[in-house]
């Protein structure tokens, strides 16, 4: 399958993520959109890795597998981030009884 499809899908996912972050006010949805963006990036990395692998054969195993290892890193970091982020959202809910980010403007001034 040509690489173009992957790129288009990835860009679509990423754009959905950005638009979600910009337009939604619910913290959990924003959070999910951030995950969406991360995964769009992951998808692109894996796709390119596969493409290079096909082009170069097995002569450069490290070059081909770098991106895939990178994806694992991103997944781990994302998992850690999710745990911290959800904890923060829980705390926000406890404090203001809402997860609407527009209420979170008390740091102003």
């Amino acid at each position, binding site marked *: 399958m040509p690489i173009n499809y992957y790129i288009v899908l990835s860009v679509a996912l990423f754009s959905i993520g950005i638009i979600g972050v*910009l337009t939604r*006010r619910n913290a959990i949805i924003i959070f999910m959109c951030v995950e969406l963006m991360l995964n769009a990036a992951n998808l692109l990395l894996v796709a390119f890795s596969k493409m290079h692998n096909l082009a170069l054969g097995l002569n450069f195993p490290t070059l081909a597998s770098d991106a895939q290892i990178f994806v694992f890193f991103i997944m781990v970091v994302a998992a850690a981030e999710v745990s911290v982020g959800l904890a923060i959202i829980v705390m926000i809910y406890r404090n203001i009884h809402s997860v609407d*980010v*527009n209420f*979170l*403007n*008390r740091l102003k*001034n």
Partner: protein
Amino acid sequence: MSNTLQIVWLIPFLPLIGFLVNGLFRKQLSKSLVGIIGSGVILASFALSVYVFMQVKGGNIHLAHYFNFINTDSIKVGFDFQVDQLSSLFLLIITGVGFLIHVYSTSYMHEEDSKDFAKYFAYLNLFVFSMLLLVMGGNYIIMFIGWEGVGLCSYLLIGFWFRNNDYNNAAKKAFIMNRIGDLGFLLAVFWLYNKLGTTDYHTVFENAGKLTPADLTGITLLLFVGATGKSAQIPLYTWLPDAMAGPTPVSALIHAATMVTAGIYMIARSNIMFTMAPVTHYVIAAVGLATAILAATIALKQNDIKKVLAYSTVSQLGYMFLGLGVGAYTGAVFHVMTHAFFKALLFLGAGSVIHAMGGEQDMRNMGGLKKYMSITHITFLLGCLAIAGMPPFSGFFSKDEILAAAFKQNPLYWGLGVAGAMMTAFYMFRLYGMTFLGKFRGTHEQEHHLHESPAAITVPLSILAVLAVIGGLVGIPEVFMHGGHKLEVFLEPIFATTNEYVKEHQPHEALSHSTELGLMAASVIGALAALLFAWNKFSKYEKTDAAETGLGKILANKWYVDELYNTVIVKPLNSFAAFLNNVVEKKGIDGAVNGVGKAVNYGSRQIRLLQSGQVGTYVLLMVVGILVLFIIQFFL
């Protein structure tokens, strides 16, 4: 190198010690101890100077190198002393007259507080140190150190009674006028260094012929500017009469005998360069003559006893510059020497009178002091005769040597010089008559207090009087005695190159003996007539309230030169300074600085509004920012 003259460094070093001791321990030392230290170091220097003089007379010239004063790759200036005929003669004058004035000061300044007394002697010692440095330096840089040092001490001592604001202003005026001259001196030294790569006297004079005429003229004119400042010549002479604000012994030492002759020393030292620059010679002669006449006319109408002497000093310095300008270097140095004797004597005598009068300086309130102060009177009369150029007093020999040389150059110089000499005789005997003859015109209380001064004052007066009378005998002209001019023989090595140069390039016929005698007779008769006229007129001087009119008023107001300087220089400068202060500083610079502050303040207040606290806005701005970066990266 076991030259006995290695010890010359002690000569300036001793006054420096005196300065440090008196200056640092001025609160502990008693007055008598201060006086002994202050005068003692000068006496020791004088003894050494006599020794050095004897050595030099025996032909022992010494160039001492102590250390490198400036030591870089491109510039090397040694801390050198040059002891030769010229500097050893000045050493004698400075330390000898200086010592007498120190002794005199112990009595004259006795009413000061012990602390101020020590301060006074510290300054005086520092002055002698600087002056010795000036004449002993082996290059122009060391001379310049002394040159600045004496200017500083002059400032400190004129403003010694600094609680009086007029005195402070006089001190500042002296300092600023001197600075103007010093700038010329400094530029000349830079120029010289740039062209020859050295400021050592002997190298400079050896290579003076390699300089182009334009360079020589420029350098010598700038040096002369320095001399006009230090030696009070037109246009920078106005500080000297004001400098009379200082204590009288200071006027005698600094503003008559030594410091003001620094310019003459410097030009006599650099004689070969000046001889090779005829334009400078004309300028010097003209300025000297103009100063001599102008100052003499002003002195005719002054009523302050010290002011008369001050203008007389300016006038006599003018004669010395006339001598330098017509190439009579020996005559100029000779006149420096005799002038140091009789003018120090006159100032100290005036100090003695002022002392007796309880601080009164106005001659209109004096008179008849002859019978109260016999020693002061006699010595003062001798001083007056010496400055009036009566034979065989010292002033006659030195002044007539200069006038004869002036006649050789241009008879007009001689005529004006004689006119000046007549005025000199007139104002000196006007001063003498108003002060010592006639009857006393002061208050009854002052008359009651009139007394002869103590020995510490009269002894220096007597010694100086003897010197003023016989001092001229070292320079008897050829007319009277073959080989009588011992000073010329002594100074011959200093001016040897110049004499050769003159013989080669500008040969002059020597004056015939009869002409010379005729000139002398003319000037002496003129001066004598003026003298007798003044004696006759002022011995019966009566105080009048009539204000001066016509020319007399102009003279009494010093030709309005101070007013002229005020209008032409001081006021425009002041208004320019006010302009800089009010417009450029307050509006321009302050406005710019405050404007930057205001702009930052205002800008930050506006930008602060962006920080709304809305997370959504922040994210939006971030995305926009990234998009902009992408656009820049890929499309621009």
